[in-house]
Every structure is written in structure tokens, then in C-alpha cells.
């Protein structure tokens, strides 16, 4: 559930970011790209610590959020979503950016000569052409968010019904009720295999 919301969040922010990285030539593009991919190489627990430092109740931005809106992210469901999105975003951005780079920009030029504004070009030409890349990226992103453990437990904790995700539940169950842990693990395994099988079909049908 939180994985799906996190994927949605990644789509909303990741696709424009990927477009920006692929099509706009700006200073510091390499730095931005490096920052986007950092969560990919960072141990998730370290990512969670980083999130706590920035958005924690006494963090750099968290203090301000708390004071201005009474908003606290750590140890809430929103915090789980944020932690998952943080870790899963690179999968989407890299996949979409790759698709954008492979797409022929001359189609966009053709659309422009037909009177289409930049937004129309993106919505009616670019997006449909990179759709396989977006779908693949979103599925990878979703799968990563689903399996997220380190950043979630560090940033959002493990409160049943509030911030407890499947992997956290499995870890906990393993200590108290090993049978339940096995069942939960099997469910996760089945879901992952189903998603990857679907993704593979998508790849095969578009290539």
C-alpha cells in the first residue's frame, strides 16, 4: 500500500526530473544526476539517518516544518512513504531518462511545427513514446519500495498498523512466530515474481 503511494510520488517528481536531466542542458547537471543516484549506492540505513537529520523533529527542514505547519514526518505513515520514495526514486529516474535519451527528438520538433506547445508535445508525443520505459521504471520502483527495510525502520520506526511494512513485519515475526514469517515471506515472494513476470512480458512485447 505505502509502496504504491511511494511509486505515485516517484512518478510525479521523477518523470519531470528525468525530462529535465535528459533534455535541458544546465550547469550542475552532473551533480544533480549524482545526487539522484546516491540512494542507489547508499546503504538504506544511512539513507534513513540522512532523512532523520534533514526532516527529523530537530532536523534542518523538519524543525521549520514543525514550527510552520505542525507537521512531523518521522515515525508516521507519510514518513514511510517518503523513506520508500527516497530509496526507490533512482530506479524510475534512470529508467525514464534512458528512455528519453533513446527517443528521437525530431518527433518533438515535428509536433512543434504542427503548432503544439511544449506541454502538448510532452503529453501527446514524448510521454506515449517513452511509456515502456516509464512502466518498467515504475514497476522496478514499486518493487524496491515494497522491499524497503533499512531506511523505513530508521526514519519511520516500526509501529504496527502505522509504519509497519511487510519486510518489517517479517523480521519481527521471525523472532516471535516463525510460521507467520514464512507465510508473509511467501506472499512477498509471490507478489514480486508476479510483478517481474508482468514486467518481462512488457519488455518482450515492446522490443
Amino acid at each position, binding site marked *: 500500500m505505502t509502496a504504491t503511494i511511494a511509486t505515485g510520488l516517484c512518478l510525479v517528481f521523477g518523470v519531470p526530473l528525468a525530462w529535465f536531466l535528459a533534455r535541458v542542458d544546465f550547469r550542475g547537471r552532473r551533480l544533480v544526476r549524482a545526487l539522484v543516484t546516491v540512494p542507489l549506492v547508499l546503504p538504506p540505513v544511512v539513507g534513513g539517518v540522512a532523512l532523520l537529520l534533514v526532516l527529523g523533529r530537530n532536523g534542518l527542514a523538519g524543525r521549520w516544518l514543525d514550527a510552520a505547519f505542525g507537521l512531523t514526518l518521522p515515525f508516521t505513515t507519510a514518513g514511510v512513504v517518503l523513506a520508500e520514495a527516497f530509496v526507490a526514486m533512482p530506479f524510475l529516474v534512470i529508467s525514464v531518462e534512458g528512455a528519453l535519451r533513446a527517443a528521437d527528438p525530431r*518527433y518533438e520538433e515535428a509536433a*512543434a*511545427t*504542427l503548432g*503544439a506547445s511544449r506541454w502538448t508535445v510532452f503529453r*501527446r508525443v514524448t510521454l506515449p513514446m517513452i511509456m515502456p520505459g516509464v512502466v518498467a521504471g515504475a514497476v522496478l520502483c514499486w518493487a524496491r519500495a515494497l522491499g524497503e527495510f533499512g531506511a523505513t525502520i530508521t526514519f519511520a520506526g516500526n509501529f504496527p498498523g502505522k509504519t509497519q511494512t511487510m519486510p518489517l513485519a517479517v523480521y519481527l515475526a521471525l523472532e516471535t512466530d516463525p510460521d507467520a514469517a514464512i507465510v508473509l515471506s511467501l506472499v512477498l515472494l509471490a507478489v514480486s515474481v508476479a510483478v517481474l513476470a508482468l514486467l518481462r512480458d512488457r519488455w518482450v512485447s515492446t522490443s
Partner: protein
Amino acid sequence: MSLDFRLVVDRGAFRLDLALAVAPGEVVALLGPNGAGKSTALRALAGLTPLTDGHIRWDGRDLHTLPPESRPTGMVFQEYLLFPHLSALDNVAFGPRSHGASRAGSRRTAALWLERVGLAGQAGERPGRLSGGQAQRVALARALAVDPSLLLLDEPLAALDAHTRLEIRSALRRHLADFPGATVMVTHDPLDAMVLADRLVVIEGGTIVQEGGPAEIARRPRTDYVARLVGLNLYRGTGSDRAVKLEALTLATADRVEGPAHVAFPPSAVALYRTRPDGSPRNLWEGVIDGLEQHGDNIRVRLTGPLDAAADVTPAAVAALDLTPGARVWVSVKATETRAYPA
């Protein structure tokens, strides 16, 4: 109401600089070798390549300050660039829709244009399922459906096979005749240019080297490129009365010309002999055969010597005269078959 423009585009060491005026209803073909800047000129007109300097004006209104989507242009790209995820109908409807027409209205306009290019039956097909000729016609319909003032065609027939090309060329000619705006077409095929255009503009190295009607260009080429294009031998020399003095020899001509002059004659006007012919025609010299190649039903003989020239002879003559590379032959051209004109 007419189009007039001066395009200056700098690209590293290459500089495109051409000025031209095109009347409504007129079709101008930009002709030139690869890398001459033809496509750059077309992209600059469409707004896809920024101008370094110059202007584009239609009916007194500046177009060069507008982004591509605001210019009254329709463009047919060399590879058509039909949107692969849309049907033929939706491809054509894309332009009207982007210009603010309703979904139904733009589809009606698109259906009308598909019918005009004879593809009403293929409206639902994706571009991947259309033949080359059909895709070309969809691309033309898509460009015309936005009701442009300026139609730009980039090598519109280059991607077609010989047979389809013939058919599409005459169809394209009819559509261009009906089009009320100005048309600028880029091509490297002289036949396309001569059939489709009212006026040819030859570009080499980013500048205009010759412009005129198709017949004028074909009769009086001014550069080696144009001469090769229209299949003529071309030389530059100094005219005095009915003769033009070249570097190595003087050619007698039918036309009277004074000062710097061009002489042109077709390869078919060149006669070859193994021994010095009697009756001594006035233009006679001894040349060496450089090479032979098939040219239509005839053999084209490339000659070097005092004058580089091409001669067309029948296969029978090649056999009878034993024409082989390296052989020495006598070359003659009748004065009445040459054309001389001021350079």
C-alpha cells in the same frame, strides 16, 4: 503578400547566408550537394534552428521572432516522422487539435485531408502499417491540415522507391498547384526539382550560386555541380565573337559572346574517332579515354586530355572503335551544338 527572408546561420566554420523572396502559390526548390546547407535553411525557416542573423517576413509580419509552434508553417520531413503511436487520422488531426480545434472538429478536418490525398481507407492504420508512398501522403496531409501560409518540404520523395516516386511526384505536383501559400522545397534530385518547382535555387557552400526557371538552369549551368546535375559539359573561358578561348584550346560556338563566358554542350553532341576525321570540324582535339560507364541505353565515355569531357556513344560504336581506358581518340563537337553565355 509574400515571403521574403534572409537566413544567416553560423555553425562552426560553416556559414549559411541566403536571401530569397517567394510569392504566394510559388514553389521554390533549393537544390545543392550534401552539406550545402539546404536542410539547415529549411530548419531555420521552421524555427527549429536559430538564426544568427537575418529575418523571415510573411506579408510584412516578422516570423523569425516566433517559436516554431507559432509560425504559420507546415513541414514535411524527409523520414516523415509520423507519430508511431497515433493512427493516420490522429496524426493528421494533431495539427488542427494543437491549434485549438475541438477533438471532433480536428478529426473532421483530418478525414477531409486524408480523402484529398486518397487515403480515406487507411485512416485507422498506424504509420508502421503504411507503405512508403502512403506514409508520404499522410505526412503531406498532416502538414497541410494546419492551413499553413508556408509549406516546407525536406527531400519529400527521397525515401521512396523508383516506381512509387513517379506516382507520388505527380500527385505532389497537383497538391502543390492547389496550395495557395509559398512553398520551399529541399532536394538533391534535379528531376524532382524540375517537375515540382517553378524556380530553382542552387546552393553550394551555404550561398546561392544560381537561380532561375528549370529550363534556364538546364540550358545554362553556371557551376560544375549544376552542369553535372543536368548532364552537360561546362567550361569557363573568354569569349570573343563566335569563339570562347579556354586554357588549352579555343572552342568555336554558335552564339556570339564577349568577355568572361561559359560554354556548355551535352555529351550526346560529342563525336569520337580513332583516326583524324576528314573535312575537319572546327572543334577537334585529341583526348585520352579515362573510363567508360553505362548511361541509359548508351555508354558514357569520360575523356581527359586538353579538355575533360563526357561523351555519349552507342555500345556498337564502343565495340567498332575499340574504345578502352587509356586509348587515344579524336574528339569533335559541332559549333552548332554548343551554347555560349556570359559568365
